């Protein structure tokens, strides 16, 4: 599960949070004099510091893991401290899983008790399964039982994580109700049960654009405190996030080297932010919002696509017409309503904006 710190870690592509930040966690734990809830590695205040950054008592610098509103992280930590389950909602690319992993690492020192929600997630992966060889050889017993991450977390009093909760079929989701309200997992085959130890709780993440997939029943919903993680608050933050990712992706995909023109990145981010928020950046004109998410992740893919276009078919520089088609595709998701939104935006905002005429022409050409 975890690599002993004394040995040099093998070149893991991506180490777990508790390993990658072991030094910070240790420093915080050493200097932490405040009261800790049962089986917590740190006090709630120290968990908050670990996520938002700051300094440990011995002066160790704690890097910020999440950059965003402080109060959200406080609500999340307070939720876990009241042994309630935490549901992190947000559009794709808002660091839900990232926050969940680090919370689990800080609270329990273990972020690996993870159930990845998919359409195929079965009840066994939420409760327990059987080792059939054992079962056939020795009959039903605790030894023949293979426990799920949830069951392990209950027994050990740790934080279990469920990713993409809304992708899990509704009947499987319902397994959680007993676990969260009774804090116990019955094993009728053995006439036995696993009772959760203090410190057990669940962090689930879900995409709030996916509500339609397998919407949470209100019975389950009621057992979670919900924290919605927002999109980046300022354009500068978002430009920074997008340009860094675009560069990284370009390297990974081994695209020919196209100077990712800052101007086009800024433009794409501006278009996305304006349409998403329904307001121009100068705050003077309100707009309709299209049905799509227009998350930073989509801006990244529009730009990566644009760079590929520019490199292979263009003149090697990212030009407005390289991104125009991608933007159109990202904005127009609903064929009846979105084109109107897009055309209104083009005609009322883009058209009259200084330095955007090339972009306007490129978009006009496409949507004509």
């Amino acid at each position, binding site marked *: 599960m975890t690599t002993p710190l004394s040995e040099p870690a093998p070149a893991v592509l991506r180490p777990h949070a508790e390993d990658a930040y072991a030094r910070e966690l240790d420093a915080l734990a050493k200097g932490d004099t405040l009261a800790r809830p049962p089986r917590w590695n740190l006090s*709630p*205040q120290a968990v*908050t510091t670990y996520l938002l950054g700051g300094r440990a008592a011995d002066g160790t610098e704690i890097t910020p893991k999440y950059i965003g509103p402080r*109060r959200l992280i*406080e*609500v999340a*930590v*307070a*939720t876990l*401290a*009241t042994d*309630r389950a935490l*549901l992190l*909602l947000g559009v794709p690319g808002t660091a839900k899983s990232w926050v969940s992993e680090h919370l689990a690492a800080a609270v329990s020192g273990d972020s690996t008790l993870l159930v990845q929600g998919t359409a195929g997630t079965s009840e066994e992966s939420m409760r327990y399964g059987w080792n059939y060889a054992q079962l056939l050889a020795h009959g039903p017993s605790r030894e023949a039982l293979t426990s799920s991450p949830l069951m392990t977390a209950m027994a050990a009093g740790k934080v279990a994580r469920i990713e993409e909760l809304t992708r899990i079929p509704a009947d499987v989701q319902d397994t959680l109700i007993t676990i969260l309200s009774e804090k116990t997992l019955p094993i009728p085959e053995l006439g036995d049960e696993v009772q959760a130890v203090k410190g057990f709780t669940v962090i689930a993440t879900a995409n*709030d654009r996916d509500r339609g997939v397998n919407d949470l029943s*209100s019975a389950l*919903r*009621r057992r*979670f*405190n*919900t*924290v*919605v993680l927002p999109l980046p608050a300022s354009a500068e933050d978002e430009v920074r996030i997008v340009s860094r990712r675009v560069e990284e992706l370009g390297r990974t995909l081994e695209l020919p080297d196209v100077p990712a023109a800052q101007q086009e990145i800024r433009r794409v981010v501006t278009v996305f932010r304006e349409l998403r928020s*329904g307001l121009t950046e100068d705050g003077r*004109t*309100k*707009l*309709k919002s299209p049905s799509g998410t227009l998350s930073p992740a989509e801006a990244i893919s529009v730009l990566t696509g644009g760079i590929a276009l520019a490199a292979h078919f263009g003149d090697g520089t990212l030009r407005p017409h390289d991104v125009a088609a991608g933007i159109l595709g990202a904005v127009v998701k609903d064929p*009846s309503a979105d084109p*109107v939104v897009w*055309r*209104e935006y083009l*005609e*009322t905002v883009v058209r009259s904006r200084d330095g955007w005429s090339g972009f306007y022409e490129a978009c006009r050409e496409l949507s004509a």
Partner: protein
Amino acid sequence: MNHGGARVVLLGVRHHGPGSARAVSAALSAFEPDRILIEGPADADPLIPLAGAEGMEPPVALLAYREQDPKVSAFWPFAGFSPEWIALRYAIERGIGVGFCDLPAAASLSQDTKAQARDRDRDRTGDGPDPIARLAEAAGYADAETWWEDVVEHRGGRSGPREGARQADGGDSLAAFDAIAEAMAAVREHEPTPERDALREAHMRSVLRAALAEGARRVAVVCGAYHVPALSGICDGREAQPPAQAADKALLAALPKQTKATATKLTWVPWTHSRLSYHSGYGAGIGSPGWYRHLFETDDHVTERWLASVARLLRDERHPVSSAHLIEATRLARALAALRGRPLPGLAELTEATVAVLCEGREEPLALIGRELVVGEDLGTVPGGVPTVPLAADLAREAKRLRVPRTATRKQYDLDLRNATDLERSKLFHRLGLLGVDWAVAVGSRSAGTFRESWDVTWEPLFEVRLVEAAVWGTTVQSAATAKALETAEQTETLGSLTVLVQRCLTADLPGAVDPLIAQVQNRAALDTDIADLATALPPLAGILRYGDVRGTRADGLRTVVHGIAVRIAIGLPPACVNVDDDAAHALAPSLAKVHAAIQTLDEPAIRDPWMRALRQVADLGGAGAHGLLAGRAARLLSDAGVLGAEAVAALMARALSRGGEPAGAAGWLEGLLAGSGLVLAHDKALLRLIDDWLAGLDADRFEHVVPLLRRTFATFTAPERRTIGERVAHLGAPDGASALAERSAPPTGVAADWFAAALPTVRLLLTGSPSHPGSPSHPGSPSHPGGAVSAEVAPTRKLEPAP
């Protein structure tokens, strides 16, 4: 100076702080003063008894204004949970001598005019350095409000404010104020005192000295915590720190003397919670009066009761909220408070718990909670006997200037807006209308011109009350109407009513309201997906833009807005015409025509071209989804505008009425083309010819198919219309121009003929410009002559027969 055993307690408070109010209440009971001094304009003393009068319900405000110029005014608001109000009521109920000790309003208004646009009142957010912010900073708080709440308002740990205050009775309740005074003194020691505050404190000290000189033995002073150090040590001879009596006298003597021009009046006016809050621009406001009221009025279980009222509100809005939700929300709020090291959950913790638990992550209900609970709309009342409010005084002055006497008998004013006085009168009436004081009611003008208005003017006693109520909006008719219009706009639902409001503000000449309203129209228009709504909004705005009006009002932002709306309509129109039912189509069709007319009068290519393209699209969509009525109407509008030639219209008609289409759609198309009236066919020869030619060109099969459709449309026309159309069709072949009159089939006879003959020379003169016309027939036909009675639906058949 020693006042022989007299005692003074200084109760330093936060204005509108509920914890301070409880503490003041406890301290007064413990100390039992024989004199209370309250921070407030000293010249308001005569108004104090009214505070205890029947019908006085906070929130109310003391209002001071210049008699000559009511725009120069200041408010001192009091909520039910303001410490000053508590002290005021305590004194009145027990018959204890009470007075205000701050600078007289007359003086502070003069100060204000000097130091324009600064917060006129209240030290906490005042012009000088913020000492409470310094204290909070020292205690590690980022926010002074939170610090004060934790340290002072929530004093008493987890047990809730009331219990806290109860524990703190007797000497303890006074000790708390001593602690505040000490902290404040420490801060102010190193801060220069702003000139304005020095002056105010000099006045407070002199009032306090006067009270002691009059023989008061136990004086309680309720003032902002900031002022406490400046007042301490007056009675026990330790006057080293505050300036001595002589210095104060010199300072106060420098105040400007009152003249007739600066004469100031004071009165009580009703106030509202929302005006106590920050959003209304009142400098020392509080963000959450509703929350403070809750803190003040709730004895125990503050957190639970607050969440319960949130739950009740959410349930009313059909958000399911169970008791289990409340339990968890309470736990979360407590855990958050503990995490942040606060003694009790504050509004921030409660709000976050509300979002995370009660609202399941959605922030949308917060706006509602904010409006209904956190601010909590409370409207105060004042008793009947309060002095005139400046708004009423302003109205009286205006009425006198414009010679509109206030009488209970009805009088009609016919105004000619080209006349300056009449124009002013009209503006006054319109403004009063916006304020809900319907002293003057517009009646239909006798003249058709836009420069005339008629008003019925009757004064009713009710209006006095309305003026007092409206005083909350402003001190002059103009400023009050402006504020009221803006507030109304906030609550307006549809774009249409918003544009009506813009129009009203333009006619009432309220430039201060027009620009923000236009900005709102723009925002609303941007979000409005209902084309019908946008279409209703455009024509009045275009009218204002095109013609301005006789009042000479200008609206600079209007052009952009009109353009924006027109472009949006043009973009949204084609999709809006597709897949609509008959009702919606019939509702949209007239606005289509109105928008078209508005755009034509504006005559600007930038909006005309997109509009024409949109119409063209709708017309082209005739057979493919767009409602027939709308497609037909679009074709007609395009044809009238000369964008579509006769052939193009004919092609569209052929397509719309072709066999593939639904019969109902085809009939609708025809109805749209004719705009629902046969009259147009009787007068528009080109259109008639178009239909006639198309009909004549059909083969027998198609004709049989089309006849029922035509019958259906033509049957909606009146009989005389059909008759006239029939006549017209019979003469379609005749050349135009002079033959217009020759079309009439048979000459009239008898008396009618003579009458017509007598009128003829004039008609001829009007039509041709020359008194006689040799070639004209002497007996023009009557349009309603029975000889021409051919029903419209058979007319095409007649035309067909000679051309098989």
